[in-house]
């Protein structure tokens, strides 16, 4: 068993009388790609929000790298090493692509207010490092050709990849992708699959929330399934695919719906 990076221990999340998550226990090991799936309203996004510190769980605990996330501010969670992207793209649309990534890279910089005003050598060096690293990330994501365009002028596929680049710039240990394939055509989904595998090859751990079974089943090492706030399955993609509960809860519903 490899090292556990994120430990979701018996987490229950209630909003008023509504239970969004019920006794969910989930571990993510360092270096794996975990797919998290479930029908709409199953609690995937809540799960995600608890992980990234948007909500504190009603019961249970979340530990990351052995450290409890309770009481940490959002930016501290980012500094601890969790990054995320959004289902609905949330870029800084008036900034250029490279500036967007630099905001993420800045999370690791330390130069002071005074340094920024006086433009000390250290501040200048950090600024150059940020810019170089951000350009590298844009290249890695294959979107460096539009680095100096305002984010709002980028094509949709570029915007999605820019979000991932920006999240990677915060130097996370765990990268959480919230439906990164939304709105992609099959060819783009294929590219995304390759990209996710490439990201993992760089040593990142990836949590993938996705509707598209093709993407999840192809790239995930392990798949967890949520339904009505409960975890109903957790295992290798093939095991999960043939699990009768999962078929009933998720795949079955999906088939009937279409």
């Amino acid at each position, binding site marked *: 068993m490899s090292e556990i990076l994120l430990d979701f221990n018996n987490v229950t999340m209630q909003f008023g009388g509504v239970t969004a998550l019920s006794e969910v226990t989930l571990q993510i090991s360092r270096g794996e790609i975990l797919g998290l799936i479930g029908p709409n309203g199953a609690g995937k996004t809540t799960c995600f929000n608890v992980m990234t510190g948007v909500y504190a769980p009603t019961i249970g605990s979340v530990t990351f790298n052995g450290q409890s996330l309770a009481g940490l*501010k959002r*930016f501290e969670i980012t500094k601890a090493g969790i990054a*995320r992207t959004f289902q609905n793209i949330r870029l800084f649309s008036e900034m250029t692509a490279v500036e967007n990534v630099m905001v993420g890279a800045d999370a690791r910089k330390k130069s002071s*207010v005074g340094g920024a005003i006086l433009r000390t050598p250290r501040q200048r060096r950090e600024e150059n490092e940020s810019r170089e690293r951000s350009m590298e990330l844009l290249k890695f994501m294959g979107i460096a050709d539009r680095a100096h365009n305002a984010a709002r002028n980028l094509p949709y596929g570029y915007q999605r990849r820019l979000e991932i680049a920006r999240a990677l710039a915060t130097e996370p240990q765990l990268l959480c992708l919230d439906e990164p394939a939304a709105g992609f055509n099959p060819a783009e989904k294929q590219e995304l699959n390759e990209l996710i595998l490439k990201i993992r090859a760089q040593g990142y751990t990836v949590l993938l929330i996705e509707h598209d079974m093709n993407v999840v089943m192809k790239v995930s090492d392990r798949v967890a399934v949520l339904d009505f706030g409960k975890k109903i399955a957790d295992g290798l993609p093939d095991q999960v695919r043939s699990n009768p509960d999962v078929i009933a809860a998720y795949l079955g519903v999906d088939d009937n719906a279409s």
Partner: protein
Amino acid sequence: MPDWLIIRTFWDLTVTGLALGSIYALVALGYTLVYGVLRLINFAHSEIFMVGTFGSLLASSQFLNIPLLEDGNYPYRAGMTLIFFLVVILIIAMVFSGISAVLLERVAYRPLRGNGDSIGAVALAFLTAFIVSLIFIDDTQVNVIISLVLTAPIAYSYLRIFKRGRKAPRLAFLISAIGASTAIAEAVGVWGTHGRDQYQTARILEKKTVFNLFGTDVRIDYVIVIVGALLMMTALTLFVNKTRLGRGVRAVAQDAETSRILGVNVDMIIIVTFALGGVMAGGAAMLFTLVYDQTRFNIGFILGVKSFTAAVLGGIGNLKGALLGGLVLGLVENYGSAIFGGQWKDVIAFTVLLVVLMFRPTGLLGESLGKARV
């Protein structure tokens, strides 16, 4: 050509209008920066400017020990001494305004964001104790001692309230802003050595004519004001566009929540924003005293309203808009009062604002820092 006042004095009006407009523009930057980042009209910003004028006053009268008159003449300085004195006064005015802007944020706004901390709690506790003790005892020194004793327990209970993390409704911020504004001005009016009267500031700059513009003599102080304001604004623009903290300011202005998730310390950025606005207001205050050689406890009020108008005119949240709005307002006021008479000055300024807003609700240049937010 008819012998109209506006034609006879056109270039004079232009120069003084641009100088006044530069001061409006510098103060407008404070409104615009805070609005861009917090969507809050910081009405107490006018008092940050006023504090800056008192910073200039203290700098020249206390720190530099310049008398108002030397042997019946103005205490003119020249050459390097003059430059050194002006820079010292400028820096002290900026420090006064910058620090008071940051304190204002800590005390009047941050607790309302559901995010109060111990510094804000201690300051608020001291103020509370002080105000309450004023009701019973009429001796400032005794009041201060009592307040100091009571600060700790009150601060403790404030901290417990802050811990609940409740965010106040938008209107509460506005009320807090107006309250802080009145409190700062009145405090200076009550405890200042001259109370509610005018203070003269030492005139160390001999206001000589430096050049002639189409028959109008242009004085050195106007030139310093216009050039100084432009330099400060350029520095600010560079800071916002080229540095890590500036990038943080822009990121938070566009989407605070996403910035937070990307590791931006939003509270830190808010402090930087207030400090930047305060420093610009301090610069404006020093330039103001250079031209007018005076200040008063309520000097910020009208100037603040005008600067706010300038910010809205140019497009609030937009740095270039603040500059344009300030200059346009300064010029329009001057030309207008030459045509209709000085008593119409403010009417003209606000009429222009109304007309511009009818056709361009987001101001001349539109919102910029936070344009992206839906």
